[in-house]
């Protein structure tokens, strides 16, 4: 097949996918639509995680600290500042997650590899502890209820707390964020992070400040996770400590890895797979995490490229960023 034909095919595929996303509320019932919305939010969470794992080769066990921080910042912004517009709260949540990402990143990126992995876990535990103890702000074990304000579009106010409106709101903002992440990985900046993963020393010789590149990626990844966190808060009209727990970190790890770290869309596949399989299994048994864990181990043992890697292999070896799913970067 000629290259232009292939590009054409891709464009047609993309257009079809977009059209399908636009008519989704007519195809799905309200319960199914909610599930789909949840999967989209988790897609952003997983994509942001894969920027660290897949692109920078940084294995983090603390991504929920950003997700939860974003969710709580969003809820606090709404609850403590009456009259706060919806987008104002979303922007504030992202801003506060960015600041937090900077502080944590400066501290943690001093170390690499395994010490980095375990320090992210310790920081996640720290943020969780703050969440429990700082009862006056976070509500502690009780969590925070939120009343999502309407979205002011200038000519009309939309109720976006549930249903098709929430779906479209999520589709636009979360979709834009995922598209931005994709765009970022294609920029010179994003590519340089990829190269740092492969050979940091050489990049230094070429004059790159590798620490700054990594920090920027780390902060961006955190901010996007924070955005996903705010939408998770809107979806549930509630934020609990669950959002910042180690379980939430585990979740993103499972999603990303099952989906595949080697391709940009791998985590999206993983997020949808995880959300739907969890939904299916939890109807059948309370022990669904056991099955999910076994699936995860099976993937690690036999399908290290994840579902997306498997699909790419089956469809005839499309070039990807990390063909074998073997990640460099941990020494």
């Amino acid at each position, binding site marked *: 097949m000629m290259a232009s034909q292939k590009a054409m095919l891709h464009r047609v595929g993309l257009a079809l996918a977009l059209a399908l996303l636009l008519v989704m509320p007519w195809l799905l019932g309200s319960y199914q639509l909610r599930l789909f919305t949840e999967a989209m939010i988790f897609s952003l969470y997983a994509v942001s995680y894969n920027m660290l794992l897949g692109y920078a080769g940084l294995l983090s066990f603390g991504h929920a600290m950003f997700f939860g921080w974003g969710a709580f910042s969003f809820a606090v912004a709404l609850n403590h500042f009456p009259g706060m517009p919806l987008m104002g709260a979303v922007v504030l949540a992202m801003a506060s997650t960015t600041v937090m990402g900077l502080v944590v990143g400066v501290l943690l990126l001093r170390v690499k590899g*395994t010490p980095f992995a375990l320090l992210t876990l310790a920081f996640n535990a720290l943020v969780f502890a703050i969440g429990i*103890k700082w009862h006056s702000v976070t509500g502690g074990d009780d969590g925070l209820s939120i009343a999502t304000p309407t979205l002011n579009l200038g000519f009309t106010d939309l109720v976006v707390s549930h249903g098709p409106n929430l779906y479209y709101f999520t589709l636009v903002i979360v979709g834009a964020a995922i598209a931005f992440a994709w765009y970022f990985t294609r920029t010179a900046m994003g590519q340089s992070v990829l190269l740092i993963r492969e050979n940091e020393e050489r990049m230094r010789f070429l004059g790159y400040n590798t620490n700054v590149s990594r920090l920027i990626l780390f902060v961006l990844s955190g901010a996007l996770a924070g955005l996903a966190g705010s939408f998770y808060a809107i979806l549930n009209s509630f934020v609990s400590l669950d959002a910042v727990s180690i379980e939430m970190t*585990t979740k993103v790890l499972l999603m990303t890895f099952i989906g595949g770290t080697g391709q940009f869309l791998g985590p999206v596949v993983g997020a949808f797979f995880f959300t739907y399989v969890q939904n299916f299994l939890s109807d059948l048994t309370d*022990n669904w995490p*056991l099955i999910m864990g076994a699936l*995860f181990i099976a993937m690690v*043992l036999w399908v290290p490229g994840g579902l997306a890697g498997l699909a790419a292999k089956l469809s005839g070896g499309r070039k990807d960023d990390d063909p074998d799913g073997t990640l460099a970067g941990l020494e």
Partner: protein
Amino acid sequence: MGEAAVFFLHGLAYAGLLFLVSSGLTLVFGMMNVLNFAHASFYMLGAYFAYSILRFTGNFWLALVISPIILLVIGAFVERFLLRKVHVHGHVHELLLTFGLAYIIQEAVKLLWGTTPMAMPVAGILADTVNLFGVVYPVYRLFIFCLSALLGLGMALVLFKTRIGIIVRAAVDDSPMVDALGINVPLVFMGVFAVGAALSGFAGVAAGPLLSVFPGMAGSILVDAFVVIVMGGMGSLGGAVLASFIIGELQSFGVLLFPDFSLALIYMLMALVLVLKPEGLFGEKQ
């Protein structure tokens, strides 16, 4: 004064548990460059096995012997049939594998034993108190500390005074060289991994009567053990001793002095070490 002494002893008991868990973790890391996320799960399994053995036989000492032996076998199995399989894919996959394992053990424990915390009562002399320099103190906590100290001493003897110890230490420093000298390094790995699991299980049995047995016990000690090996320097046994002592005492006095911030105290200390000496107290510069 009396109160401070009590809290100091409390700290020693917890430091003992921490050392038993983190020593195996740090040795395995030094040798294989693999951080074993499931290590604290071995600790939890040790406690649950002991709980069941205690329920059926009523003999704590039996539990203290059998439970670590079961974990020795589990540890050897995990290393031989799981960890070694993903070794070719690199460290990330090894980390992810142990992470998945920890997740599965967590869920399996909930499935088999339920989620409610269970008390593990000890009888006889262990349940007594003793008058120590004018302070009435439970025997059991002293017992934990002595047990840990004895095991730690035994471990030090094996590591520093025997041929096996020399091989293990050499493998921690430079495993390709040891391999080149004709020593079966994978077997050494398996042995250390299994013994580490057994020690962790031992700590779990000892912790059961003190902290009760519950599904969250792995997570709570895991983070502390991580802090210990980061602070002490990854792969350093001496660092693990010192850091266990510091964390144990900090935990104990933290609860006494700043009940609301005792958790944060440990992380702040860790952040401080990280800023001043990223390789840890006894670690080598990368």
